[in-house]
């Protein structure tokens, strides 16, 4: 090399996501602002796509009349029951598949084959079995929650480092203690990740099930307002669903923070 000195250029920029706390607020504000301006200048039809302000007023009216609480309570009850039943069954099945070779060999192909079926397609069958009332809706949600929970739990148990299990065995720990003190906490991150998916599926299914046969519930409300061309109220229902999704996501994030502090 010659004696000429050149500085070495930095080449490792980018590909390094850094948090920008203000970005999401600006993005939301921009979308809402654009929407409102588009409505004000007449680019969007007030009948087909009411402005954010109109949707907000519809939401407030709904809340003041007490209907919002009743719709939300009905939906939450269905989600709660369906999610709890589906989660309990999914965890039991997933743990069995993760822990026992026979259960895995027999169960995994069955779960893999049934998982892709859109569960809402089974609602008519459940209505025949359980009637048009609550049990058919709860069963649809429970079935929708069961499969992702079982798959997540099985994979989570599978991913518990085997050296930790061998360590427990090396110390003479009985099998139930190994499951309770090593497998279960080790599988918790995977199980909680599965909860996120199953909670989203429960929210989707409750809306779909309520659209097929319910008087109260957010899904029923959205369907009814659509039939009546009350688009401001329809969008208010969609906003409520979005807020429900955010609340569930927030609750799961809180749970993860509380239970997985060690990560």
């Amino acid at each position, binding site marked *: 090399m010659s004696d000429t000195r050149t500085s070495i250029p930095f080449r490792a920029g980018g590909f390094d996501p850094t948090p920008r706390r203000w970005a999401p607020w600006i993005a939301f504000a921009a979308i809402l602002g654009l929407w409102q301006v588009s409505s004000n200048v007449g680019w969007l039809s007030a009948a087909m796509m009411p402005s954010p302000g109109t949707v907000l007023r519809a939401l407030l009216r709904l809340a003041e009349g007490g209907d919002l609480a009743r719709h939300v309570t009905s939906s939450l009850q269905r989600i709660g029951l369906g999610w709890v039943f589906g989660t309990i069954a999914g965890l039991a099945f997933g743990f069995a598949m993760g822990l026992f070779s026979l259960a895995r060999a027999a169960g995994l192909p069955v779960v893999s084959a049934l998982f892709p079926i859109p569960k809402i397609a089974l609602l008519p069958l459940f209505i025949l079995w359980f009637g048009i009332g609550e049990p058919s809706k709860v069963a649809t949600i429970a079935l929708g929650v069961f499969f992702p929970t079982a798959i997540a739990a099985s994979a989570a148990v599978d991913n518990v*480092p085997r*050296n930790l299990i*061998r*360590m427990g*065995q090396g*110390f003479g720990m009985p099998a139930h203690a190994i499951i309770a*003190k*090593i497998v279960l906490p080790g599988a918790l991150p995977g199980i909680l990740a599965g909860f996120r998916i199953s909670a989203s599926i429960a929210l989707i299914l409750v809306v779909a099930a309520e659209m097929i046969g319910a008087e109260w519930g957010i899904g029923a409300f959205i369907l009814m307002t659509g039939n009546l061309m009350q688009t401001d109220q329809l969008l208010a229902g969609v906003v409520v669903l979005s807020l429900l999704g955010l609340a569930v996501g927030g609750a799961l994030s809180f749970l993860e923070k509380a239970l997985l502090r*060690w*990560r």
Partner: protein
Amino acid sequence: MNLHVRGLAHAFGPLAVLEGLDLDIASGETLAVIGPSGCGKSTLLGLLGGLIRVEKGGITASGAPPAGCLNPFTYVFQDFALLPWRSVEGNIRLALEHHALAEEERRRRIDAVLALTGLSEFRAALPKQLSGGMRQRVGIARALVVRPAVLLMDEPLSALDAQTRDLLIEDLLAIWAREQTTTVYVTHNLAEAIRLADRVAILSRRPGRLRDLIAIDVPRADRGQARHAGALAALQDRLWAAMRGEARDADREVALV
């Protein structure tokens, strides 16, 4: 506790890893096991501690375990095998929780091993907060808390940097001076074997057979002294001479697989 290995052989499917192994390990002795990669060192530890089923040959133990022994054959793992969701104390306590002990006795044992391994100040720390050396100290403390008759150590220092390794070797020497536990110590590191062991067993390449058994006559406490450096270096040369061909053949074998 004495260990007697007779005609021990093991295979994983068609792959024979150990063959015709005869070995006696005396109570209180530290036996280092060295050999090329894949020669069955870790398999031997698994067989000794009951984590791998003995299929051919036999392993027997004689003599009484030490007073208060809760788990006669106890492992110290290469990758520490600590539960990341438990504190230092919680990880050590794990080894005691399934034994019917009074809480006072549990606490006494935990306090004793924390002091012995220099971890008393870190009892509430999580593994992620500790350095590699400190994590392995937790692994050692967890092993000692059950007062083992035989300590089975599977390359316990290989995941650590050279300085930390030297510090832990000093700690192990101090611990063994007090505890007199029979130890089988698997390592790749010849210097480590010479520094820590009473005898070194050299295994051949796969399937592992006992190629040589070399006693280290220099007292363990004196091995750091300069006047023994020549003798220990000669021993290390002898170990390497015994291993070199095997290691080269094993390396080629692995490359061909």
